[in-house]
């Protein structure tokens, strides 16, 4: 049928009376036929008088990485195993659409010079941005949802940093800090107006979790519990001055009873708050780290693959 047949079939849908047979397509004026079979934008068609499009450039099917990858993938690699295929084309890039001409050029250069796809796609920023936009809201909701529930039950726990831990492990320290700080700022809007004053503690949690996760602190359950206990000491240290300065030592949560007991026994307010934090926070943070561990462990493989090079998932959850 030849290369032109698909264009003929398309045009026949538009003009069924004129294009009754494939041969009639050849009778089309050359400029019209070229315009139909061109993958260039309208303003670049031969003989076109249309000015540059003012609409956002949406990628055509041929601009998708999957289509280009299929077309340009060297034949010698086509008989490789699925693992080999994944190495060349990670799942994210197979599904990702190019958003601009620049990224398309980057990709073409990468394919032609046989470089690693990820490094040269120019899509690292796109990928990271998309991951951030996806994970941070989910982390914020985890923080706020669980934190509010525990606060309403007046338990001597907080459970308000699960989202921060999860996002730090998935995407990295800056994203974890953003999740923690934003969740406490938004918590001020939605849950409790004094939450924003504890934003610094959330930043400390993200930094500590990120540093520990770099060394594989979430590889097993015992390591995760140890990380949680250490995290508890860090958060108790960071939040004690805020509790003393802002709340006078009492936050209205269940741990206030312990602070009251320590104050009654003659300790200074800072020491009482710190000791209360050290006694409650490790349990709370170990629980939170275990919850984050369980959530990430149960993540489907398809989702895990998308965070392969972003955070600390591979260092801690790969077998």
């Amino acid at each position, binding site marked *: 049928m030849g290369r032109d047949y698909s264009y003929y079939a398309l045009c026949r849908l538009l003009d069924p009376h004129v294009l009754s047979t494939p041969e009639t397509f050849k009778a089309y004026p050359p400029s019209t036929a070229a315009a139909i079979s061109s993958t260039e934008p309208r303003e670049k068609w031969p003989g076109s008088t249309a000015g540059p499009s003012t609409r956002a450039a949406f990628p055509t099917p041929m601009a998708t990485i999957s289509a280009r990858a299929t077309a340009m993938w060297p034949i010698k690699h086509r008989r490789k195993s699925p693992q080999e295929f994944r190495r060349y084309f990670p799942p994210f890039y197979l599904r990702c659409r190019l958003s601009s001409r620049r990224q398309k050029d980057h990709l073409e250069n990468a394919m032609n010079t046989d470089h690693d796809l990820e490094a040269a796609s120019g899509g690292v920023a*796109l990928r990271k941005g998309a991951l951030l936009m996806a994970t*941070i809201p989910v982390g914020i909701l985890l923080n706020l949802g669980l934190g509010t529930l525990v606060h309403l039950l007046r338990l001597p726990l907080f459970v308000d940093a699960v989202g921060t831990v999860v996002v730090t492990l998935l995407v990295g320290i800056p994203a974890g800090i953003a999740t923690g700080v934003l969740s406490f700022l938004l918590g001020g809007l939605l849950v409790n107006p004094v939450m924003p004053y504890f934003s610094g503690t959330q930043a400390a949690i993200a930094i500590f979790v990120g540093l520990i996760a770099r060394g594989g602190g979430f590889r097993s359950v015992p390591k995760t519990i140890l990380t949680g206990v250490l995290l508890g000491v860090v958060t108790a240290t960071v939040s004690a001055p805020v509790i003393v300065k*802002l*709340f*006078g030592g009492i936050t209205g949560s269940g741990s206030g009873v312990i602070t009251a007991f320590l104050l009654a026994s003659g300790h200074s307010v800072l020491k009482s708050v710190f000791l209360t934090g050290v006694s409650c926070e490790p349990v709370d943070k170990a629980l939170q780290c275990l919850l984050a561990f369980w*959530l990430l462990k149960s*993540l489907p493989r398809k989702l895990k693959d998308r965070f392969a090079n972003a955070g600390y998932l591979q260092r801690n959850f790969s077998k």
Partner: protein
Amino acid sequence: MWFASPPPLYRGLAVLLALYGAILANTVNLLAAGLLVVTSALWAQGQLRTFAKFAFTLILPVGVGLVAIWGFIRQGAPGPAAETSMRAGLLFAAVTTLRLALLGAVFLAAVVNLAPVRLVDLLQTFGIRRRTLAIIVSTLNLWPDFRRRVEQVFAARCARGLMPDRRLGTRVRQLPYVVRTLFVSALGQALERADSWESSGLIERLDDLRNSPSTSDYSRVAGFVWLALSITWGVAATLRLFST
């Protein structure tokens, strides 16, 4: 109402000054005066009920705890040079409680009652753009979506006979299953949505929202009133701090 709609820049500056003053203020009279002004503003905006809920559920327990500890158990204010008497302890408890109430009230009056479009405008005025803005907006939109999805998960578990009833205790016991299901599904959907936003250039176009609320929606007079009140408050708190 005109008083509730100062321009974003005036609103932001007024909030910062009010918070600064609230942290510095150290006398019951000054804090009570500040709280009275902010409560009036909340009343004018129709937010008094929200503030009452905040005061009863959060401030009151803290206040009672502070009075019990500093007024009756320790009978004195904290600090090495502080006076040790029941009066000093009660005074410290009152100042701390009032300060907390004021900090919460300022946040309620200035930010909580904002309509989403105005919140976006306020954030853009202070330089929050593109991805950060998209994250904040999508979080605010995800909250009701999350609640709806929780109900769907409960309904599905009920239909499969995995959840005998919908009482509070049963719901709490079902929490681990709900959290995992919600997390995985929300993350998957959020990734797809973020991909499509990026590829369609929506993030770049988000900045166009800047001109969407008309400037006539804001009252410059309200802005001046807010700013004047917060400057007065900040100066009074600073002077009072140095005079003591």
